[in-house]
Structures are given as structure tokens and as C-alpha cells.
């Protein structure tokens, strides 16, 4: 049911959101997450970022997590678009959009998908700075964020 796309070109978040709810009277909540290439500042300024990915595996890995999100939450639609190639600051990197009847499902699924994209989807960021290219290091916070979805009960479940 979900849509997964890997592409070089930019995406239109508004059009993707429209697609998730048109002719769907049961959709009451849409959450979108848009990841944007940050520019950094001063000595840390970035002139561009190149996203390398593992074609084939990246699609499979994201589709697997979309299916897991659909099994865990009551979703009416999911779209994940991840770009690759060279991007300049301000450009979109990734879109996760989730649709549900009530907000808690859409929020939880979008966070879950982002946490997994950060830690399990085979993408690698290389940032171009004045002194040259540098591979972005994985963040331990991202591992912690992904790990929280592995415990069966979550405080989030208090929400609608």
C-alpha cells in the first residue's frame, strides 16, 4: 500500500500529501517530515552534500519498514521519498508522510520511519567543506531513537 521512491530529483511534499488524502474520507490526520540539507555556519559551512546509496537494498529496506509501520499502526497511507546524489544546502533530502484517522498513529509511524531511515537504510552522507569532503558520522542518539521502537509498550500509547 505504501509508496517508496528513491530519486535524484526533488519532490513536491504538497502533492504527495494531497495524494494521501484525496478521495479518502477516513483520513483525519496527516503528518509529514521533511529533511533538509543544512548549510552549517562559519568554518563549518557546507557547500554541498552527496548522498550515496545502495540501490536495490535501499528500496527493500525502506519498503520493509513501511510494511512494519503499516502492521503496527492504523494507517490509511504512507509515502517515503529519499533523494540521492549531490544536493546543496536548503534542498530537500527526505520526505516521510503518513495518513491516519487519528493523529497518534500518523505521528508515531512518521517518527518510527525516520528513526529507522537514520540507522538502517543504506545511505551515506558526504559533506563538502572548504577543506574537502567528509563522511558524516553516525550519531549514537539515532541508535537510541531507533532502539525505543523495540520495546513492546510505549508511553506514546497513552495518546489517541
Amino acid at each position: 500500500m505504501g509508496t517508496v521512491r528513491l530519486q535524484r530529483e526533488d519532490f513536491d511534499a504538497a502533492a504527495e500529501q494531497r495524494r494521501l488524502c484525496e478521495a479518502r474520507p477516513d483520513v483525519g490526520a496527516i503528518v509529514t517530515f521533511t529533511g533538509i540539507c543544512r548549510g552549517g555556519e562559519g568554518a563549518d559551512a557546507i557547500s554541498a552534500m552527496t548522498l550515496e546509496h545502495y540501490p536495490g537494498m535501499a528500496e527493500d529496506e525502506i519498503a520493509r519498514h513501511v510494511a512494519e509501520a503499516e502492521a503496527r499502526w492504523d494507517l490509511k497511507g504512507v509515502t517515503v521519498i529519499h533523494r540521492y546524489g549531490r544536493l546543496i544546502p536548503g534542498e530537500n533530502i527526505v520526505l516521510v508522510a503518513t495518513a491516519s484517522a487519528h493523529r497518534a498513529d500518523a505521528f508515531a509511524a512518521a517518527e518510527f520511519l525516520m528513526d529507522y531511515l537514520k540507522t538502517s537504510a543504506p545511505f551515506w552522507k558526504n559533506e563538502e567543506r572548504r577543506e574537502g569532503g567528509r563522511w558524516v558520522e553516525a550519531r549514537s542518539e539515532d541508535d537510541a531513537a531507533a532502539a525505543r521502537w523495540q520495546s513492546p509498550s510505549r508511553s506514546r500509547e497513552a495518546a489517541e
Partner: protein
Amino acid sequence: MKILYFAWVRERVGKTEETVEPPAHVRTVGELVAWLAARGEEYAYAFENPKVIRAAIDRTHAKPETALGAAREIAFFPPMTGG
């Protein structure tokens, strides 16, 4: 079997992919890393810290102890930084 390299593992090894035929005693991902690391300076550099190397067998995440089995495509890469 086909080996793929990504990100700085690719840069250090100096190639995006290659076909290798490891000896029969190389049965796990971890053993394959050790065998590759002994193939030359560039490999030793790429695999100098096996703990930070991630692997996939036929496009599924694998651990050092995962058996290679009849794998056709094995990939090595650093921790992922997508999203």
C-alpha cells in the same frame, strides 16, 4: 561471490565492487572481513576497525557471525547516515 563497497570503505579499498573467491574455511561475514583485510594495504586500511564495518548479504543486514551460505552479493559499508 560479488563484493560491494560503499562510502569510505569504497574510498579506502579503491573500488566499488569486485568478484572474489575466498577459500572454503571463510564461512562467516567476520571471517570474510579478516580474509579481505589481509589482501593488501588498502584492504587493511578499510577494515582496520572491524567494529565499525556494517555488512549486508544479498541486500539484507548481516552480523559478523552470520554465515555466508550461498550468498551472491555481499556489501561492506560504514554505519548508515541517511534520513
